[in-house]
């Protein structure tokens, strides 16, 4: 009898790229629902829009590059990129900004570099940084969390603003939007106010901003689940947060008037989402166990440096991209000790 031959191992491995990405998406759900609850329908509209744009652009690019479309669309990587980018955008960002962001993320940062697995930079962060640099004003149009909002926007109202680009009726941007906690700190400090004075504002909660910190808790919960399921390596989130703690603690102790507490830095801005969902993007991160410590800590430290002394209120996106650049070198110099390479043992 004749048989077909293949190469070993002869074992069908569980899971595939799609299941990895899907699990990350599941983990994002609680935090995303919380974001919608606190910041309104705009979040959901932008999320859906970004996913539609991303999947369409991915399909078009795969077609142009002559690659099979189905296996690469069903890997859910484009959906994940769009989702992470959407979470970074203000809840009422105009539709064309979403499109530009997704275009740079999917087409430029991912497909032009060779598609899944070949992108040196985190696509979502490329899309976000392009928007942040090009449209700084629009990118700061954040809404207040629901308990501070004077006017709760309905679904149609949000849709209208996103597609027309301006608030309708008697609403104005000034009435609708509010600074983010990190913006508030940055502006306050530049006006020579102390952190404790700035924190008098109703915007702030226990650690970070009101509402904001609860959103972070839900995202962290999803992150813990991902670590438990071994979808992401625990080293990157832990080292990232440790990096922030290590650099922020001495400044906070020495000068609490000008520097936020470690807890404030962890619960504000992009740190929690970044630590669990963005820095852990395997393609652009370091892959060695030791390298992941350096990579995560580097992002934490750079984020703090940019926040405290740089021109932007938050710096995680830049920190991620900078460490993406360093990842191949980190990997090369942090090769683990190979079995039997140096004598060990009793």
């Amino acid at each position: 009898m004749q048989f077909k031959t293949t190469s070993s191992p002869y074992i069908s491995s569980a899971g595939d790229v799609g299941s990895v990405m899907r699990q990350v998406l599941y983990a994002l759900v609680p935090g995303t629902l919380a974001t919608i609850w606190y910041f309104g329908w705009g979040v959901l509209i932008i999320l859906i829009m970004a996913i539609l744009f991303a999947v369409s652009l991915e399909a078009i690019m795969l077609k142009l590059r002559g690659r099979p479309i189905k296996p690469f669309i069903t890997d859910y990587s484009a959906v994940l990129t769009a989702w992470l980018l959407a979470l970074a955008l203000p809840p009422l960002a105009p539709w064309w900004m979403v499109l530009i962001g997704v275009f740079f993320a999917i087409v430029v940062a991912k497909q032009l570099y060779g598609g899944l697995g070949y992108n040196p930079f985190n696509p979502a962060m490329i899309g976000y940084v392009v928007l942040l640099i090009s449209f700084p004003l629009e990118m700061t149009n954040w809404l207040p969390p629901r308990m501070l909002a004077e006017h709760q926007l309905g679904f149609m109202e949000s849709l209208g603003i996103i597609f027309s680009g301006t608030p309708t009726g008697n609403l104005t941007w000034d009435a609708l939007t509010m600074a983010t906690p990190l913006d508030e700190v940055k502006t306050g400090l530049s006006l020579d106010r102390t952190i404790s004075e700035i924190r008098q504002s109703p915007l702030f909660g226990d650690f970070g901003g009101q509402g904001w910190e609860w959103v972070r808790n839900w995202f962290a919960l999803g992150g813990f689940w991902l670590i438990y399921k071994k979808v992401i390596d625990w080293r990157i989130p832990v080292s990232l947060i440790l990096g922030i703690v290590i650099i922020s603690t001495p400044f906070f102790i020495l000068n609490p008037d000008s520097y936020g507490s470690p807890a404030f830095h962890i619960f504000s801005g992009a740190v929690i989402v970044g630590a669990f969902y963005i820095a852990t993007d395997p393609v652009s991160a370091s892959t060695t166990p030791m390298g992941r410590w350096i990579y995560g800590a580097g992002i934490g430290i750079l984020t703090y440096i940019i926040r405290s002394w740089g021109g932007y209120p938050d710096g995680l996106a830049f920190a991620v991209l900078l460490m993406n650049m360093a990842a191949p070198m980190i990997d090369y110099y942090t090769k683990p000790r190979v079995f039997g390479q140096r004598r060990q043992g009793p």
Partner: protein
Amino acid sequence: MELHLPNRLWHFHGGLHPEQHKGFTRDKPIRSSTLPDQLILPLQQHIGAEAEACVQVGDTVYKGQPVATASGYVSASLHAPTSGTITGIEDRPLPHPSGLSGTCIVIEPDGRDEWWPERPAPVDDYLALDPADIRQRVRDAGIVGLGGAAFPTAVKLNPPSRHQIDTLIINGAECEPYITCDDRLMRERADLVIEGVRIIRQALGIQRVLIGVEDNKPEACDAIEQCIKDKKLKDMKLLRVPTIYPTGGEKQLIKVLTGREVPSNGLPADIGVVCHNVGTAASVYRAIAHGEPMVSRIMTVTGKGVNAPCNLEVLIGTPISHLVAQAEGYTDQAERLIMGGPMMGFAMSSDEVPVIKGTNCILVARSNEVENPVQAMPCIRCGRCTSVCPANLLPQEMYWNARARDFDKIQDYNLFDCIECGCCAAVCPSHIPLVQYYRFAKTEIWALERAKDKSDHARERHEFRLERLEREKKEKAERLAKKKAALAAKKSKDGKTKDEDAKKAAIAAALERAKAKKVQAEVQPKNTDDLTEAQQRQIDEAESRRKALSEHKATPEEASEP
């Protein structure tokens, strides 16, 4: 004085818990296989030099009579597994991943199964034998490691004197899924194993023995422990090791039992350890105590592709189709035929190949059990392979470099420390056939090294040839010059020929033409012709400065020249 026997275990990095699938055969007692119509003995079924046939077609042989002799120190002889007639010494397909053919001795059994009268006499007092005597008997019996690698056992019983061996490790881990032959051997014939271990210990001149068995085989552990206890053996201990694939890898088991790491590019003997498989120990016992050379082995025939999975004691050379028949034939799910376990075995295209000394398992499986139905995706660098690699390598980096054919860089990542256990490929979410890439890279590097050796040799020959040609040319030129001189001397007497005059006139005309052209070129205006006085002055000044500078610069340089 009793030697130190450890109570603790160490562990190695990574590893996997693949599905065991041992339930197919773990409770099936070892059965003797029936005689096939034909036995096929490849001359190469061990690591080392191919054996040399010492019989002719048409010869009648007895069971246990040598049919091929070891052709070097690292080689193993072959014996007729039963009595019969040699019907051929010819090329047959080999049980090898390449699917290539090789020389095999083909025996047609006569059914009498008669032992060779001249075989070594059984030794009752085998523990009194001299180590050299044991080694010679093991060598004559053609024993090779039964764990799979089939390295000649006699060589491993004779470690170079520079090594201080202190521990014998007996490998009964059997970590590959599906396989249960060592499990059954230990459960049913613990006595043979232990006596074999005592002989090996005697041959090595050491006392300390650690037997490693995975804790998924409690009956086997109990049987061996009971046997050690009954015989009141000292300095011998069974250790139940955690069931983690690939604990049965030699390097991994040594690490788990002793905490020592076999150095990269090194041997267990470098760290004072010699490792043998339980099956090998039993064969050593039979060879010495019963005078039976290695003519059979125990193996597992299993998987959903056979009707009655079983453990069989088979004669070396039995065709696989014959074994499948004893497992009551193929089921309709027989889609892949694998020799060895699913992690490190290899698929075969035909069941007409024979069992060889290293064959521990035949797995007949459904295709979707043993391979991924979906296509490979790009590597997303998730690092799962890194976390399971028992050699602590970076499989994803080796993969990138193998793909890029960067064979220098891939060696930076210690490609040759890869034991091809398959853990990385088994966990890869992109379903990349990683091990295949490493085998490809290793083969390419070996080929490049061979080519380099060849080209070095060729270059030397080429240089030698050039030298010779140069010498010959010189000699020829000298001869020619001599001849010419002689001719010229003769010509000067005759005067110039007419032909030479015509040539000279033509050359003169050509020179004239060239001269005219040059003059014409000089008349053409330069862009420095129409200069104002001031410009001309500037140019002159610059020229003089440059001249001065270059003279100044030239002096020290010239001075430095010899």
